[in-house]
């Protein structure tokens, strides 16, 4: 058989069915996350007894986890810096745009690959694990210290705050170099523009000196800005769900909250409104993220979510069409392209532009095979004949 049989079958693209199943998924997830609490008391006692007896073995035996107990998985700081607190007291801070992947995590060693960006490591001294950070052309080995590794297309840079690290690699002169506190090592990648030598005191040197402006997590904040606070509604949403979070804001205060909420939290605030059944209130935070923060990486998602609401419960296809256009201006993430082209075709039909709708539907089916509402798109095309 040359092509999959699925091409000859109808796909269940019923939006209502998928939405009902989504509600079911959320209920099941919530039930499973509640379940451990019922036995938490007994488990805590048993765990304490076991931990007292096995502490030394546990501490050095298994993989290193995050402080909250979550496994250490591939981690990205997409738009804002973030920090990982680890169970052994170590800490990793990632600058915005950094991707760090654990490749080996065992009782005696932990290997991490810095795929891109800048990360600061504060490794707890005397810990049982040898740490290795692979930054492409250079590898950093350490037991207990604080240091910074930066990897970009142009260079790899390692800077030691305190303690000692070994930088190794075939590109390292002599195979390895030892760095002590306050020392830095840098290597330009072959083919990249060499950085011009910078005289001490020059603007360039000052800019370079600012690279390790630690801690990274605070790097994008104004020095005197107050520390970011987690809004109360967000805490309530995480602990008790969307309805409780909406109630904690109050219907009358929702607009004011949407106007003063940080851009990073606007999608979550819209989630609270949607999930608590107040769809009309989701519009304001989504619209604000799209209009006021178009450079924010979540702005396209906000536009798509808003257009989806306008096509669905808000029944305003004209507005949906404009919002889809805005989403495309902002850059539609690959995973949402099928949903957007399907939505645009349906919105065009609803606003009385059947010719454009057919073009959009045809292109959508060509690109995706089985986009959302495929049957509806096929009907739009059939209307051509």
């Amino acid at each position, binding site marked *: 058989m040359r092509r999959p049989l699925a091409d000859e079958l109808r796909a269940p693209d019923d939006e209502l069915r998928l939405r009902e*199943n989504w509600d079911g998924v959320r209920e099941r997830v919530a039930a499973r996350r509640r379940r451990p609490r019922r036995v938490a008391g007994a488990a805590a006692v048993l765990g304490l007894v076991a931990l007292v007896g096995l502490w030394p073995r546990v501490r050095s035996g298994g993989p290193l986890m995050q402080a909250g107990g979550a496994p250490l998985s591939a981690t990205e700081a997409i738009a804002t810096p973030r920090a990982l607190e680890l169970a052994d007291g170590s800490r990793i801070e990632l600058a915005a745009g950094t991707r760090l992947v654990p490749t080996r995590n065992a009782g005696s060693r932990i290997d991490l690959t810095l795929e891109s960006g800048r990360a600061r490591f504060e490794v707890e001294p005397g810990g049982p694990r040898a740490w290795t950070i692979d930054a492409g052309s250079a590898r950093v080995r350490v037991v207990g210290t604080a240091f910074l590794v930066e990897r970009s297309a142009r260079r790899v840079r390692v800077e030691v705050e305190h303690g000692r690290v070994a930088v190794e690699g075939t590109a390292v002169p002599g195979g390895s170099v030892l760095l002590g506190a306050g020392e830095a090592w840098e290597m330009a990648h072959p083919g990249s523009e060499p950085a011009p030598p910078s005289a001490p005191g020059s603007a360039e040197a000052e800019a370079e000196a600012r690279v390790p402006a630690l801690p990274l997590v605070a790097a994008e904040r104004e020095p005197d800005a107050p520390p970011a606070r987690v809004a109360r509604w967000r805490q309530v949403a995480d602990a008790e769900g969307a309805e409780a979070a909406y109630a904690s804001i109050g219907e009358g205060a929702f607009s004011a909250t949407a106007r003063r909420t940080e851009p990073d939290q606007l999608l979550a605030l819209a989630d609270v409104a949607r999930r608590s059944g107040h769809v009309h209130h989701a519009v304001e935070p989504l619209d604000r993220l799209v209009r006021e923060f178009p450079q924010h*990486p979540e702005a396209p998602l906000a536009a798509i979510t808003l257009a989806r609401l306008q096509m669905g419960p808000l029944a305003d296809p004209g507005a949906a069409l404009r919002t889809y256009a805005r989403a*495309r201006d902002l850059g539609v993430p690959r995973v949402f392209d099928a949903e957007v082209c399907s939505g645009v075709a349906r919105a065009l039909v609803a606003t009385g532009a059947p010719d454009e709708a057919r073009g959009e539907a045809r292109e959508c089916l060509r690109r995706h095979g*089985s986009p959302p509402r495929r049957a509806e798109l096929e009907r739009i095309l059939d209307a051509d004949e």
Partner: protein
Amino acid sequence: MAALREPAGGPAPESSGRLVVARDRAPSDAILVARALEGDAWAEDAIYRCYAGKVLAMIERLLRRSSDADDVLQDTFADAFTSLGKLREPSALRSWLFGIAVRRVRRRQRTLALRRALGLDRSLDDATLAMIASPSVSPERMAELARLDVILERLHPDQRNAWMLRHVEGERLEDVARILDCSLATAKRRVSAAEVLVRAALGEAR
């Protein structure tokens, strides 16, 4: 309206450097997984929106029952969201989800077989290949699909699932093995064992 006709991923307008940046930073599966692990509800929503349709279609075709398919789909995503931290390679999200779904399907197939053997389930399948064939399929092809349904019904579920993943879903053999959580050799053996029977029954028609 010009922006509407611009295919996503197509060339960015010259005046909009920002657009290029936004596309470069479009959330991949890996980013969605990372954000979901951080507790962002929209990321779970996005993962569901991206894959639910495809996973549901596969479950329905493997189970041949639409009502059971909804239940299995919900369990699949509940499993996924409560064990997302175990996903070693976030960019392999799709095959990981399919793997969870197939394990859930297999469990449901065992339950259904037992219930049928005990006479507790006399309901009929409502999502066989012939029943969910596209309206554009010719009558001859429809008859072939109906014959295929009969043959698939007789196969061992492990062979049937492997064959369906390969020939209905169009998965590569390597992905079939990954989804079924078995070796490539086992996946090949299951697919070809089913293939022999299917070809024997449909050979004349091909």
